[in-house]
């Protein structure tokens, strides 16, 4: 029957409802600040929002959005190829290209559209794509649509990438290599120096998704490629406006002039309405703030290190290095649900992640840190986890 394949998910939703827990789609009833809100009736610290620099609630960004809504209206009501290219969109494309020091940029309506659209379009039948095994769902969706041969290399393993490039022979020259800056679930950073070295040895094109690293890494906040000093080796950088920039949308920048032709071949760009001008205006302001206020990144990393060290000291199975994403890995679904619920009751909202959204068979309590978190808030989050450990709900043995 058509609906049989949804039964397992339906049963899981029934189980969650029976346990009176709502980890997926928990409703935020009020936003108090960039790091505080009322979720499911409780006032909580927001520690699962990807709002890395806290700019979603920045007064300057809000003012720009309000001003743009007054001047342009609430939406464009059309595609960029029809009536939906306003001067705001063009200005943002110019500004994001300048931010990355390249000449070409495309702005998309979502980050998902940016990565899936680019990956679906850059390579086609007869081409070959090599992607990190832990790539985001939007990348997998895009490459599946491309019609190209899709080869996975082991997560963050440049040796495996090199082996697979060697096996391709002459085809490696035109291969599209796909990696991310910071991986969204565990917060681990790609070994980009080594990946760039593989590209220099075998050829190919490098596409990098900086969704979680833009604004968080690099001397001027461009991301992991800048931090690794390999920007000249990157052919395409994609990213999102819905994390460090605090709004919604996505982008792709490139030094290749061909991006201007590629633009007109991307279905995820052509056949959807463009972002509302208020979104674009707040994004432009956030981009200006990122460039002007590098101290935000320092605060973000101070907070990330504090949370990572605190959870690690409790014996919990966190990722390999400190990062704005600090995920606690768990092996038992039921315990993970109990812990998520207990954290919410203690006033801390985090993300619960279940396979296949997590990169292994593990379950995750995923925390994301913001520059807007106070030291006291970070300590409250750590204390909430410590309480779970003390109450026996969460033990280091349960997280592996």
């Amino acid at each position, binding site marked *: 029957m058509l609906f049989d394949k949804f039964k397992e998910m339906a049963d899981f939703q029934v189980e969650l409802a029976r346990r009176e827990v709502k980890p997926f789609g928990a409703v935020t009833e009020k936003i108090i600040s960039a790091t505080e809100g009322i979720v499911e009736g409780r006032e909580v610290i927001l520690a699962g929002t990807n709002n890395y620099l806290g700019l979603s609630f920045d007064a300057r960004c809000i003012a720009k959005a309000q001003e743009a809504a007054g001047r342009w209206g609430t939406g464009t009501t059309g595609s960029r190829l029809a009536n939906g290219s306003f001067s705001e969109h063009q200005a943002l494309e110019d500004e994001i290209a300048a931010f990355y020091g390249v000449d070409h940029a495309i702005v998309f309506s979502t980050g998902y559209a940016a990565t899936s659209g680019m990956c679906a379009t850059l390579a086609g039948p007869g081409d070959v794509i090599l992607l990190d095994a832990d790539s985001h769902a939007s990348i997998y969706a895009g490459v599946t649509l491309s019609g*190209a*041969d*899709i*080869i*996975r290399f082991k997560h963050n393993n440049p040796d495996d990438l090199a082996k*697979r490039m060697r096996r391709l022979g002459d085809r490696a020259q035109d291969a599209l290599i796909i990696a991310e800056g910071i991986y969204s679930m565990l917060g681990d950073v790609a070994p980009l120096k080594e990946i760039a070295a593989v590209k220099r040895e075998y050829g190919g094109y490098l596409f990098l998704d900086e969704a979680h690293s833009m604004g968080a890494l690099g001397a001027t906040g461009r991301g992991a490629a800048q931090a690794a000093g390999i920007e000249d080796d990157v052919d395409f950088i994609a990213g999102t406006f819905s994390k460090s920039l605090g709004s919604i949308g996505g982008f792709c920048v490139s030094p290749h002039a061909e991006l201007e032709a590629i633009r007109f071949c991307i279905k995820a760009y052509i056949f959807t309405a463009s972002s509302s001008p208020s979104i674009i205006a707040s994004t432009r302001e956030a981009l200006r703030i990122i460039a002007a206020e590098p101290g935000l990144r320092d605060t973000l990393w101070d907070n990330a290190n504090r949370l990572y060290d605190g959870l690690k000291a409790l014996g919990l199975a966190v990722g390999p290095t400190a990062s704005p994403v600090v995920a606690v890995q768990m092996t038992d679904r039921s315990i993970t649900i109990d812990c998520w619920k207990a954290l919410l009751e203690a006033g801390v909202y985090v993300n619960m992640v279940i396979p296949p959204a997590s990169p292994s*068979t593990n379950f995750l309590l995923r925390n994301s840190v913001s520059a807007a978190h106070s030291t006291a808030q970070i300590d409250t989050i750590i204390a909430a986890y410590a309480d779970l450990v003390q109450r026996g709900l969460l033990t280091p043995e349960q997280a592996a």
Partner: protein
Amino acid sequence: MTDYQEILEFLYSALASQNKKHLELTEDTALVADIGLSSLEVMEFIEKIEDHFDISIPLNILPDVNTIGDLAGKVKELNL
């Protein structure tokens, strides 16, 4: 280039440890429906084949692979 029969023999031996039902493996044995490989086990099995024949098996051909024979045919195509 490896002979189809040699590929089959390798696949049988590589599957031995995962053949928990002790089925008699043939070209028509289905990897998931008969042997019961999980998605993770399928990927481990694919990696074993890739390293043995020094090839990469594209993900996009896997939807067409149900049986050991299907897989042997794909490996033969890739092992030109």
